[in-house]
């Protein structure tokens, strides 16, 4: 089985530092390669196999860029897969009810 994929958060106050960090890094982005602004910092989420995380931590050492591993998306996904029903909650044509409070 392939290595589990982890979601990693990169932070920096400078977009160019983030680009320097990411240039040549063996990571993938999520839906699109965006850096969201959070106060004075830019935050990028990237994905990498577990085996590449330490390599990334040391090989891509750019001052001003911090790295945090957020989640093992493979493991969480497998946990949720076990909760996916094989039946159909709405097979009897009962309409779903939403989470909003009607008042």
């Amino acid at each position, binding site marked *: 089985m392939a290595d589990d994929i982890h979601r990693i958060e990169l932070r920096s106050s400078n977009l160019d530092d983030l680009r320097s960090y990411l240039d040549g890094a063996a990571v993938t982005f999520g839906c699109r390669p965006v850096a969201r602004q959070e106060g004075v910092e830019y935050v990028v989420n990237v994905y990498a196999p577990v085996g590449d995380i330490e390599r990334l931590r040391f090989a891509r050492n750019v001052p001003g860029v911090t790295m945090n591993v957020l989640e093992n998306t493979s493991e969480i996904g497998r946990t*949720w897969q076990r*909760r996916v029903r094989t039946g159909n*909650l709405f097979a009897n044509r009962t309409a*779903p009810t939403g989470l909003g*409070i009607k008042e």
Partner: protein
Amino acid sequence: MTYPFNVDEIEAALDSLALSHPAVTELITLPHATWEGRASHALRIGSPSASSRDTDTVIVLGGVHAREWVPPDALVNLAADLLEAHSRGTGLRYGSQYFTAQQIRSVVEEVQLVLFPCVNPDGRHHSQTVEQDTNWRKNRRPAPHGSACVGVDINRNFDALWDFRRHFADDSKVSASDDPCDPEVYVGPAAASEPETRNVVWLLDRYPHTRWFLDLHSAVPGIFFTWGFDVNQTTDPTMNFHNPVFDGQRGVKGDRYREFIPPEDFHSLQRVGTRINDAVAAASGTGYALQQSYSLYPTSGCSDDFAYSRHFARPDQGKILSFTIECGKLQQPETLEEAEGVIREVCAGLIALCVAAQEERSERARDDVAAARKPDAMVTS
């Protein structure tokens, strides 16, 4: 709600909601079956079918990327909440975000909302059932001859600078690949080659009065507005995506090329994006980032850029302002409570978008009446 829905449940939920609320819904069968033979459906919430092509429309997509399980569930939840509140004549609350009964009625009866919750059902089913592929993103297009690599990224397959090698600079690092074995951003063999993509295009064609388009993904969290091609600029209309003079120059940060967006569109996107974000924050206590979708590197072939680009490329098309929302903080919430929290904040944001669309329609109607009453108008009529 019982997160997560499987593909059959999403389809059955739409069918059940249409059956329960026939006066204000229409179950739409999309024309293109997926590679694995699934029929897809959208749900229109709004006025009777006879006038649906002339009504201001908001189109919202979910489930384009297979592994993002929250968006389809959120859109089913949104439909259920709106329809139940409308039928009972109540308002609707998410956290401290409250929509009045009048707002709910106006959204349902004066504009229409077209929800396409699960654009990529083959991919979702694969992600939910194949243990080693829970992170699957693409659709399930069969591998090309001589290859074992399956799938196309639907959100790189739209006809919006799809031919990235021609349109973008070599050093732009555009987020796209023409390698079928790229697990993330393979653009497909041609623009709109995929049935899932063509279903979305068909919806945009079917509702020519679509004013707003939103593609719901997870997770950043952020609200992103067009363009994804390059940094926006509002002063030079000739510097734009369909001007071939700039082929090979787009997508590099800090160079001369920037993508034109009319200032009124830029301000509308910021204004309505802020309203969406305010509702998200009121529902959950924390807002999302609101910014242009280009920041680090460009993208090609994305749904939001395609929807907005249509009226530039073809002047007979109406203008559609578009967003992508990347909801929640985690690709997969760790608990049911987290998933439900994201669903609530998404619903609040999307209803705020619909309220803004309805108010915009009312303002336009008032302007039309005022213009008709002017003496000049009376003379010319």
